[in-house]
């Protein structure tokens, strides 16, 4: 029990610590989202509540933009879920590790699954096999995004449109993805997956319903598998 508790507190701390540097990008994103929500047709509080209900920044932004543009409900839902379809792939990648978790954790923790929690966890799960450590590391990393995301959404709503767009703070989002990308390039097949994914996503950017991201990602994975089969 003592050992279980010490693993829990160590893993939680490690998860929070691993996430901490990413806060510098999450905080401006949360603020920017709150500011967008403050000016949205859906109203600041329902717009802000998407941080709790959806908890996926890109899809939240797309949802508010489409509602503001007067899109049909079914189109808004379809677009947001297409943007979030990448979580299928994260879920598949994490499933072998989550298989070792208790039932409550298998159903509760996926709510905290994000790009960042996935990227940090998939790297750490490759280093540590203990299921208890993995479970609490994921919880620590997941809550490290969830808690500030709620706080800074509300702060952004309160601040309203006082931060000028010319500060380009939203650029912190792709910068954060750049930082997460580098450690995933472990070899030539991963590099090919990234280059093909990036190229196809740019070419397919005009695809309807935000499908460009998914088309790019799937092309990158296929290219990576082909490169891996050619020279593992």
């Amino acid at each position: 029990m003592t050992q279980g508790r010490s693993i829990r507190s160590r893993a939680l701390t490690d998860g929070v610590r691993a996430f901490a540097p990413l806060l510098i990008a999450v905080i401006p994103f949360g603020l920017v989202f709150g500011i967008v929500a403050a000016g949205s047709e859906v109203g600041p509080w329902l717009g802000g509540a998407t941080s709790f209900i959806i908890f996926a920044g890109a899809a939240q932004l797309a949802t508010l933009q489409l509602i503001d543009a007067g899109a049909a409900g079914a189109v808004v839902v379809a677009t947001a879920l297409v943007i979030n379809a990448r979580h299928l792939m994260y879920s598949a990648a994490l499933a072998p590790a989550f298989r070792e978790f208790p039932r409550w954790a298998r159903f509760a923790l996926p709510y905290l699954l994000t790009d960042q929690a996935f990227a940090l966890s998939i790297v750490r799960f490759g280093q540590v096999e203990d299921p208890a450590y993995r479970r609490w590391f994921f919880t620590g990393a997941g809550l490290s995004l969830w808690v500030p995301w709620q706080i800074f959404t509300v702060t952004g709503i309160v601040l309203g449109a006082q931060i000028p767009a010319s500060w380009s703070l939203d650029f912190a989002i792709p910068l954060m993805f750049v930082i997460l990308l580098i450690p995933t390039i472990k070899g030539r097949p991963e590099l090919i997956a990234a280059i093909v994914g990036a190229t196809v996503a740019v070419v397919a950017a005009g695809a309807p319903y935000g499908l460009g991201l998914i088309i790019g990602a799937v092309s990158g994975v296929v290219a990576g598998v082909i490169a891996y089969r050619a020279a593992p």
Partner: protein
Amino acid sequence: MTNVGIILVIGIGTYLLRLSFIGIVGDRVMPEWALVPLRFVAPAVLAALIAPAVLLNDGALDVSPASNPRAIAALVALLLAWKTKSVPVVIAAGLITVWAFQALF
């Protein structure tokens, strides 16, 4: 559909996407044919998230530092992320590069 309804459906759908494989495959071992592609998911998705955000300007490819400083700033960030692995360094250098080119042009 009301706005509340739209947002609730997206929220539930997003949770189900996150739960999908964890909830369904949870008690089974994933086959080898599924495991190999998964190692390429992270680099492919992250690159596909980054490239359109930094290379496109109003939907068109634009790598000119004058009209789209995000492209050159992303290149600076990529090199620094590779060399330093420091998050504050990369975020600061990326933002400062954008601000510098915005001030220049």
